[in-house]
């Protein structure tokens, strides 16, 4: 085993981190929160120019032809910066179109995704849409990331008509407002906008040429779970840093509060939890690219732990800050609010531990 980044991957990491440091500073994030725009387009364009939007797009379609590990490197940086961009949805959609689309469909969408010209949303994984007795597409989901601003909505549909329990088609909807009801999903997370409650109203969009079998559906689930987990890891890294910095600066009883064991031991436990999460996240991203049969279990593990550890660290960051942690004068609250939503967006809380419990024997 060689459980470390290659030099190329480390370079990609350096690029992502400096890009985000330049184009997604906290002032930008706070201004976005107070504003009205869908997402920070300047950041979106910078990501596209650096090849990140096209991480899972083939080079023949203007992408970088990389893998989920590289997309994950970008997601970690974006999560840490509380970036107001729909990177994960769009990346997952790019992967699906690349795998299932006809040549015409791929040409229609992929290069625009890679170039940062369109963003996407996706529903149906988990909870695929189904067809009613008239063949109309039915489904309801909330919260859906990027529901209100996406140019494309992909809907994963369970193909019960084929008699095969594990067969799914994927529909592409371009005129989202014509095909669904989209209601705003109100959230206190101001670092992102456009979450929605989507109800399909029967119009189907256009199916991608290919369909997903069980493995394909599992891959999509793994991408969303691991992608969310690595984004949450990025946020967790930042809140630990924030808590540590405060513990070193805040003086009470004649010394920095970080000199007291209660605070020290809390932060030590946080670091252990964080490093454990990091091992799981990278292993999941690696599996998606290199060991697909292991990816579903690996991704569910990463996401289950991210849901718990990211919330623990974001919450304890507020606790360590004391009174000021409870105000909106510092940024700690931004991370908690984002984590709370991240625990819901890609499936209800507990769905990943449920999956693991159902596959307990395989974990051994």
């Amino acid at each position, binding site marked *: 085993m060689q459980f470390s980044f290659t030099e190329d991957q480390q370079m990609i990491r350096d690029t992502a981190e400096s890009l985000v440091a330049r184009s997604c500073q906290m002032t930008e994030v706070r201004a976005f929160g107070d504003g009205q725009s869908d997402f920070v387009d300047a950041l979106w364009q910078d990501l596209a120019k650096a090849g990140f939007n096209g991480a899972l797009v083939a080079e023949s379609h203007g992408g970088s032809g990389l893998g989920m590990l590289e997309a994950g490197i970008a997601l970690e940086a974006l999560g840490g910066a509380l970036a107001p961009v729909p990177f994960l949805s769009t990346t997952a959609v790019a992967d699906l179109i690349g795998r299932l689309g006809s040549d015409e469909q791929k040409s229609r969408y992929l290069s625009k995704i890679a170039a940062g010209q369109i963003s996407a949303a996706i529903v149906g994984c988990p909870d695929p849409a189904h067809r009613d007795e008239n063949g109309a597409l039915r489904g309801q989901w909330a919260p859906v990331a990027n529901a209100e601003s996406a140019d494309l909505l992909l809907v994963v549909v369970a193909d019960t008509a084929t008699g095969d329990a594990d067969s799914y088609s994927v529909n592409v909807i371009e005129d989202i407002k014509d095909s669904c009801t989209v209601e705003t999903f109100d959230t206190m997370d101001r670092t992102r906008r456009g979450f929605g409650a989507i109800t399909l109203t029967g119009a189907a969009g256009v199916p991608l040429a290919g369909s997903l079998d069980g493995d394909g559906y599992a891959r999509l689930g793994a991408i969303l779970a691991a992608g969310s987990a690595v984004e949450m890891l990025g946020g967790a890294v930042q809140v630990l840093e924030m808590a*540590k910095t405060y513990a070193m600066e805040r003086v009470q009883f004649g010394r920095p509060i*970080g000199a007291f064991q209660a605070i020290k031991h809390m932060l030590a436990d946080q*670091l252990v939890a964080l490093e454990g999460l990091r091992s799981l996240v990278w292993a999941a991203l*690696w599996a998606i690219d290199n060991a697909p049969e292991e990816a579903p279990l690996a991704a569910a593990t990463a996401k289950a732990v991210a849901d718990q550890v990211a919330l623990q660290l974001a919450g304890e960051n507020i606790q360590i800050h004391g009174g000021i942690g409870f105000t909106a004068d510092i940024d700690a609250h931004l991370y908690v609010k984002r984590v709370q939503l991240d625990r819901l967006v890609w499936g209800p809380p507990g769905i990943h531990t449920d999956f693991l419990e159902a596959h307990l024997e395989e974990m051994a």
Partner: protein
Amino acid sequence: MRLTDSTQEAEFRTYVRDWLADNLTDQWRRDFGATEGRERIDFLKDWQGRLFDAGLAVRSWPAAFGGRDAPLAESLIVFEELANADAPPDVFRIGVRIIAPMIMELASEDQRTRFLPHIAEGLNLWSQGFSEPDNGSDLSALTTRAILKNGKYVINGQKVWNTYGHLADYCLLLARTNTEAPPHKGLTAFIVPLSTRGIDIRPLRQINGQQDFNEIFLDDVEVAEDAVVGEVDGGWIVAMTMLGFERRGISVLGFACRRLFQRLIDVARVTSTRDGKQRLIDLPGVREKLTSVGIQARIAVLNNHRFAAMSGGKPGAETSMQKLHTTELNKTMHALALDLMGKSDLTDPHARSQFSEWERDYLTSFGMTIAGGTSQIQRNIISERLLGLPR
């Protein structure tokens, strides 16, 4: 990044498994089980010698000292396969994994030549003489005294928690050689043969019924000047080096935790509730707890590989994270095992004998969160050395 074996690693792993299948047989286990005390050590010396001859012991050591210059990843394969094969505890781990790496780094050429081959082959058993009744976590305040008199160091004092001292050949002992300097700058490390006159070793009774560790009383014990390891008054760096290797060594417990997880699944699968109506593995509460420890066992194994890739030959403060995590997990898992046993039908004699074994192993797990630096000390190290918080 590669989370599978390379071709070379896979071949080596097959070799290790085949070797273990041929050598760690049921008959060997029966013979081992029948030994105790000095006889057990001799039995395990033979085992260590065989591991050495097969190229499995000390694989990552430099070839000059009896190793194969192999990457750490291959040593991890050996530890993992030993854990998977339920190999007996490695009594030579103190010499092999703690003292020898320090000797390679800090000892004289002569000491390396004299001691390393014997450690590698299991010809000598080593113990550590660090903690004292009044100085455990606060090691640098230790008071065992070594005074240079007529070309010899005369040592007086007392050590405690000295594992295998009653059976070992040597002790790596830390003593105070300078009372003027700040406490941690007045210590010297010595290689002390335990047969030296003036050494009185008294076994202590452990809560798990075993007697693996001891008090050692040193009464005018004389050692030659060449028994000093490293610099005179430079014993603290020797101790810190050893503790870093000790923490990493303990962390291979992560592989044992994954093996333990497999055993817990097996137990839950074959064991029924007292009313005989369900298997334990079908109880939602049991599945939830097993999932939780299974996740942590996966983390422990992944951490072993990731941290090895990070730190290479020289273990740093990150080993404190591994030590804290794996030893606490080990304790949690043994508590869960006892709970599973408690849910079973204990009127069945077979279940009762299993319960006894798990009970003893559960009690043993309490030692691991204390030895090698308590969990509380590890948290101090993590927060101070990795996070930079003030002491």
